[in-house]
């Protein structure tokens, strides 16, 4: 028995040593690349047949690039909206994620040579005859991914659009008529929409753009290596093979790769570069609109919560046993599962049984149902805090149970419940931010998208915080006034009596 701890110590030392060594070796020969794999087909995504592995044409391409550079590719799963900041923080060395060079991005990162020519494709419902080109979308809403060539193009053209975190959500909302069309890069469109019998392409692909590798500014050695590797896999036909395998080979690629192979530089000027136009006036206007949505969500959800919470509380504390169980199950379900999961379920799950709500309504109802569970517990505690004697006093005066509840118990319980209700309302204000998961343009979504588009995380963050405070502080103030009024009523009445007597 004495030998055992010694053995463990040796084992730990060995593991630590090997970790140290492998770490050292890795930094020499590893190419860490970042991309967003969620809904990321065909770029990089989780292999459905083998869920702990990633596949995709860019995955294969980076493997080839790394091999050409004498390195080993290591994928760092990340989030599309924060790719550039993650790159700058050093979470990985390069961005390879269908990344388009734009002037605003150029201020934050540098770009490699292009490796792919992409186009945009508009998709509509198969039975929708109104839309045949983007020009038909002037007064409709188009779904797309946030901070992409497509979203920038829509913004430039002044077409209303809603942004999604992945193509699946956008195409599903086209099907469910939550949006009228979706605009995506052709690779995503080919993978997610082209074989969907409920959807059809509207018009031809348009706008030739470029995909490049994104690098940290000043990482010039790495940039030279990446550029050389891109040339290498184009010239030796590796990239062509990969693109053909993924059905991404087309005339634009033929022309582009032939230019490279003949030793010429491709005419960058011939390709479109979309631009995000950011100015503070527009940003503040969009934030204001988002703030209004936040207010609508918070108030709407609170009304549902307050109204539904009461029958839940009464059912749970006074109902027959079957009703108690039903109410308890409701409360435990909504308290015990994350509100984010509930929203996703309502938004994406319910359409399966034919119940389709727009995003804002889903968020409003979802938050309302969730907070009803919390409010019911506030009410229940308040109701149970009223002494039994109050009921009996009311009954002894021949008041019916309903009358006793309404006139005697409820007003007293309300006073007890008011402070925790206020508290919940303020936290509901902030919880509206989960609505970004279902593409509702509220404050948190607005912050995320505007800040990612502009890089103004700090200033926009301050602005958004001010918006939240401007909404929650008056709320808290009103609640305090109400509480004080209830508390001070008796003293004020006494003063009134004194005045009368004088």
């Amino acid at each position, binding site marked *: 028995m004495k030998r055992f701890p010694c053995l463990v110590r040796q084992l730990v030392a060995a593991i630590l040593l090997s970790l140290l060594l492998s770490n050292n070796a890795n930094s020499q020969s590893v190419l860490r690349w970042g991309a967003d794999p969620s809904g990321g087909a065909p770029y990089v995504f989780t292999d459905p047949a083998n869920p702990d592995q990633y596949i995709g044409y860019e995955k294969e391409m980076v493997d080839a690039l790394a091999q050409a550079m004498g390195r080993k590719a290591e994928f760092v799963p990340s989030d599309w909206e924060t790719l550039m900041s993650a790159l700058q923080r050093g979470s990985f060395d390069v961005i390879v994620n269908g990344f388009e060079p734009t002037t605003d991005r150029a201020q934050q990162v540098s770009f490699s040579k292009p490796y792919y020519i992409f186009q945009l494709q508009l998709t509509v419902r198969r039975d929708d005859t109104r839309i045949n080109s983007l020009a038909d979308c002037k007064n409709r809403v188009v779904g797309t991914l946030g901070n992409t060539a497509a979203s920038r193009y829509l913004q430039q053209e002044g077409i209303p659009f809603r942004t999604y975190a992945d193509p699946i959500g956008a195409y599903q909302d086209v099907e469910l008529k939550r949006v009228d069309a979706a605009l995506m890069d052709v690779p995503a469109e080919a993978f997610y929409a082209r074989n969907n019998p409920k959807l059809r392409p509207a018009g031809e692909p348009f706008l030739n753009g470029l995909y490049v590798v994104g690098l940290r500014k000043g990482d010039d050695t790495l940039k030279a290596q990446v550029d050389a590797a891109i040339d290498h896999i184009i010239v030796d036909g590796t990239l062509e093979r990969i693109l053909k395998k993924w059905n991404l080979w087309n005339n634009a690629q033929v022309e582009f790769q032939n230019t490279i192979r003949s030793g010429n530089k491709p005419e960058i000027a011939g390709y479109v570069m979309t631009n995000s136009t950011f100015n503070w006036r527009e940003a503040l206007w969009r934030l204001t609109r988002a703030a209004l949505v936040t207010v609508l969500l918070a108030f709407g959800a609170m009304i549902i919560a307050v109204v539904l919470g009461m029958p839940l509380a009464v059912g749970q504390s006074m109902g027959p046993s079957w009703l108690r169980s039903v109410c308890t199950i409701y409360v435990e379900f909504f308290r015990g599962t994350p509100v984010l999961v509930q929203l996703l379920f309502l938004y994406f799950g319910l359409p399966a049984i034919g119940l389709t709500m727009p995003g804002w309504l889903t968020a409003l109802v979802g938050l309302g149902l969730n907070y009803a569970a919390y409010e019911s517990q506030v009410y229940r505690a308040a109701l149970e805090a009223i002494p039994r*004697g109050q009921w009996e*006093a009311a009954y*002894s005066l*021949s008041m019916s149970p309903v009358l006793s509840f309404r006139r*005697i118990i409820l*007003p007293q319980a309300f006073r007890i419940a008011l402070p925790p209700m206020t508290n919940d309302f303020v936290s509901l204000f902030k919880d509206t931010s989960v609505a970004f998961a279902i593409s509702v343009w509220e404050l948190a979504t607005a912050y995320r998208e505007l800040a990612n588009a502009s890089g103004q995380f700090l200033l926009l963050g301050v602005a958004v915080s001010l918006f939240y405070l401007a909404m929650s502080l008056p709320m808290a103030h009103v609640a305090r006034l109400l509480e004080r009024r209830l508390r001070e*009523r008796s003293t004020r009445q006494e003063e009134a009596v004194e005045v*009368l007597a004088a």
Partner: protein
Amino acid sequence: MISVNGLRKRFGTTEILHNITFAVPDQTVLGIIGGSGSGKTTLLRCLNGFERVSGGSIECGNIKLEANLSPKEYRHRVKKLRLQVGTVFQHFFLFPHLSVVGNIVEAPVHVLRAAKAIAEKEALELLESVGLKEAALRYPESLSGGEQQRVAIARALAMRPAVLLFDEPTSALDPRRMASLRTMLRGFVGKGHTMVIISHSLGFLEGLADNLLYMEQGDLVEFGPTDQVLNSPIDPRTKDFVAQAE
């Protein structure tokens, strides 16, 4: 006239009241005495329907509560009974969110559908009769125990009950206030009320109750005119209790 016949009350398998029989003639006062846990309060709670009788019957006016009634019929009769029986609880249970007047007019306005102005006028008269007119607009929390009790009495009286039940009305009072309460309650008899009063204070009941009922461990030990129960009790247990109380 309240008549109680062979009343039994069980909680689960434990019998709290055993075969209680007595009557309270109209416009008289019955005092109930006995040690803690003797069943006094349970008996009072049977009289206003808070506890359902397990055996025997209670008759009050033309309403009869019996053990074998269906729950619905029992509830129905309790509802009628309570229109005739007012209760003043030991801890008063005033409604803290309502003013003194609000406490008094609540039931007349919402149960009897009395006009608010008339109910308020009557409430002020009732307050005057209990000597609290100046407190009309105050809230219960700012009243002393004795004042709260008088509001509770006025609140019960506002429903014009024939019978008033009191649970330990003397527990929060000093001797001087006890005397003035006794005078007030005596006056109610003259106005046509019948009363049942639980009290630990034999002195308080002596000049007030027409009859006394002594209970011990759920049994009715002695029931008779106050004078007789206090001065020449039949049962030795009553004699012991009276002797110790004095």
